[in-house]
């Protein structure tokens, strides 16, 4: 927990606290915060400010029967909501996206495997399994991309990323993350919009593999 060097910048923590990150990015932030005390403390600070803003809000009259209606519901049975726990290298928000199961990997070529957790108009969340020394195809981004290391490590033009580190890449960055030697690198990759691949082939494959 103490060896995390790459964190979530404050403005993104605030966006997460206020609920204004796309679902894929929110999943990546929730996962990093699950692993990182520093970002958890910073997030809690934002929540404290949010709380004080509520305290400082003017009282607004409630409907007459609202309180009695809430009190009457206290004893009603509630629909059970499953609570997910960390499992191995996967923090609770990843386990939630996996619906409690272990990932089912699909081959992506060159030994790289992926498991798509969600995919929609807001972007996608997937797990990547990259053998030592292998690269994630060279790509640029059309939105924000967050890559959180869950096992092993990778390096790219901007630095070295180990377990718990999160890389945040924007439109300007074209990079080639390469898994370091040793254990395979497993990371959670969240993108706001589809990646743009530079190589001809991966671009063709993109709709098929839904990268």
């Amino acid at each position: 927990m103490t060896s995390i060097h790459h964190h979530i910048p404050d403005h993104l923590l605030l966006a997460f606290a206020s609920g204004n990150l796309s679902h894929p990015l929110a999943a990546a932030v929730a996962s990093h915060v699950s692993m990182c005390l520093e970002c958890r403390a910073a997030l809690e600070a934002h929540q404290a400010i949010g709380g004080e803003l509520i305290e400082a809000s003017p009282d607004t009259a409630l409907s007459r029967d609202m309180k009695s209606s809430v009190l009457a519901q206290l004893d009603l049975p509630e629909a059970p909501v499953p609570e997910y726990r960390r499992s191995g290298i996967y923090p609770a928000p990843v386990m939630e996206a996996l619906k409690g199961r272990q990932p089912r990997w699909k081959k992506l070529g060159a030994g790289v495997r992926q498991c798509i957790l969600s995919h929609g108009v807001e972007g996608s969340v997937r797990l990547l399994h990259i053998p030592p020394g292998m690269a994630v195809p060279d790509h640029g981004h059309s939105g924000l991309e967050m890559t959180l290391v869950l096992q092993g490590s990778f390096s790219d033009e901007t630095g070295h990323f180990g377990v718990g580190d999160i890389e945040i890449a924007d439109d300007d960055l074209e990079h080639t993350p390469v898994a370091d030697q040793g254990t395979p690198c497993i990371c959670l990759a969240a993108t706001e919009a589809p990646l743009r691949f530079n190589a001809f082939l991966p671009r063709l494959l993109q709709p098929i593999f839904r990268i």
Partner: protein
Amino acid sequence: EMDMSPETTWMLAVRDKRCRESFGALFDHFAPRLKGFIMRSGTTADQAEEIVQDVMLTVWRKASHFDPHRAQVSAWIYQIARNRHIDIMRKERRPVPEALKEEPNTEPDAGQILALEQETRVLKLAISRLSEDQRDLIEKAYLGELSHTEIQEQTGLPLGTVKSRIRLGLERLRHELRELR
């Protein structure tokens, strides 16, 4: 007997004794303010009340998740309110960080709780000193009305006030985790 805020005292009574009277007191304190806060984002009175109801029921049901060493009741309610607001609007479940649950039967650490309340008073003062424009901006940000790029561009956002709060929070987390191990 320590000198906790009434809100913390009520919340602990709800958590540990399932006290309805204390829940009623929390409701009277927070529900009207929360409705006002939510309506600042242009949400209608009806929708705001729907969210407030949902939040207050969550406060009752998830009371065991409240940890006075880490959060003021207001901060905890803010977090629930933002998540419920978006869940209701978008019909989805927001990803939330793994809970760090307090060990059952942990004796409240008065020193930690009071340090947090002290820190919150500093925050309250800082917020009360904001200009109207700054206050408006910070409310927009915490109501989820500024995109992350807008937040980044807003140099007027007094985020500096959170720095000492962050340091305190970190100390507290480290202390707490040491005790759990």
